[in-house]
């Protein structure tokens, strides 16, 4: 039942995304300066938001695991970190494609680019750390600590890199930035299905973790005989 709901949600998200892409290509006019490529923003920015939402949930899961010692929090932590990394990669890659077309270069050591890359590496370290630990409770405990430490570096990263000159445009959704209302509603309208996709992925990954634990338990009891 739960699985069916999940797949239903996933199908709905894909339908919404398809609808959005159609609307983007047909209904929305090209942006005045950038032409057609600007549409990548409807994936670039929501991917970053989704990525940080995932990392925030991973922090909460880490703290909750240390409080309760319930392995389901660990499963949530690893699932959200993996999905967050995937969306972080999507953000970096779409940004690079966009940069290549507008700036003519794939990469520049601008603070927004650099800080995102550092975050990505930090959470990549989380996964590498997990790989190196066999014992499930120890793995859960140390990854929770790693998740808390990683998240506390993130504000510093943003702080410190902010003091460099910047090539990346200013934020368009808050602060001084402004955005046409049609574009803005499209951006948020596309974030909803992307967040739904992330939710489905996290849920599927958590199911995998639970089954992995069941398999491990069966294996242990088989060895006990």
């Amino acid at each position, binding site marked *: 039942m739960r699985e069916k709901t999940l797949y239903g949600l996933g199908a709905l998200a894909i339908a919404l995304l398809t609808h959005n892409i159609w609307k983007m290509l047909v209904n929305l006019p090209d942006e005045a300066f950038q032409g057609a490529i600007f549409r990548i923003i409807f994936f670039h920015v929501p991917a970053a938001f989704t990525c940080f939402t995932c990392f925030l949930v991973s922090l909460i899961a880490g703290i909750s695991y*240390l409080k309760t010692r319930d392995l389901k929090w660990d499963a949530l932590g690893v699932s959200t970190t993996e999905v967050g990394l995937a969306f972080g990669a999507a953000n970096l890659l779409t940004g690079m494609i966009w940069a290549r077309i507008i700036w003519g270069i794939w990469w520049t050591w601008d603070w927004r680019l650099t800080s995102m890359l*550092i975050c990505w*590496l*930090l959470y990549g*370290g989380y996964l*590498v*750390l997990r790989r*190196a*630990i066999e014992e499930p*409770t*120890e793995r859960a*405990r*140390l990854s*929770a*600590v*790693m998740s*808390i*430490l*990683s998240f*506390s*570096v993130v504000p*510093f*990263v943003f*702080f*410190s*890199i902010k*003091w460099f000159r910047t090539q990346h445009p200013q934020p368009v959704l808050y602060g001084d930035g402004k955005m046409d209302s049609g574009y803005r509603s499209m951006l948020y309208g596309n974030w909803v299905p992307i967040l739904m996709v992330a939710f489905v992925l996290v849920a599927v990954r958590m199911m995998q973790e639970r089954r992995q634990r069941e398999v491990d338990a069966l294996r242990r009891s088989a060895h006990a005989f």
Partner: protein
Amino acid sequence: MLFLRQVFTIAAKDLRSELRTKEALNASLAFALVILLLFSFAFDANPEMMREISGGLLWLVFAFAGALILNRSFARELVNDCLDALISSPVPGAALFLGKVLANYVLLLGIEVVCLPIFGVFYNVRWAQQPLWLALVLVLATWGVCVVGTIFSALTVNLRLRELMLPMLVYPMLIPCLMAAMMLTTPLLAGQPIQGDMFAWLRLLVGFDIIFTSLAVVLIDTVLIG
């Protein structure tokens, strides 16, 4: 009071055993020298170039040398189950951790003090023009490196590939601290005092030290005991 005495006892124990064997100290000093040598092939060390990148070079050397010391910090206790004995002793986890940080701090500062004049001679940098500011930056940034490095040393002590894991996890974490140190050290080596916007980097260093020292002290029992 008792807590401080425990911290100093642990630090003294670590320093004594390190100074008797000198295994991490020698390795990391030799490593620092080799990196200093390798840099000379990477670029043409003319004065203008050095004015621009000296801080970055120096902190890369310190970060690499530091990783060797930090690796040994908890790994040294694995032999004969010393770590278990330390954990089950009446010394609280926080004191054990801070003692180890203090020992690493003294060792790394020692290496930095040795490396600075060597760096100055090899790359023709007059490093002693702003001694007090430079000392302040070294003291603050090295503390940050040692606190983050030591908690990760505890975290990775039981892992396979410990020597690889530690730098891989620690360097991304240290980026804000190292970046601030590099930003401050380059002008200091060129003879300019810290002024204006540069105080922001100094504040960042202080903030980094305070936040990660408190986080590490809170989390260390979870890391060591479970």
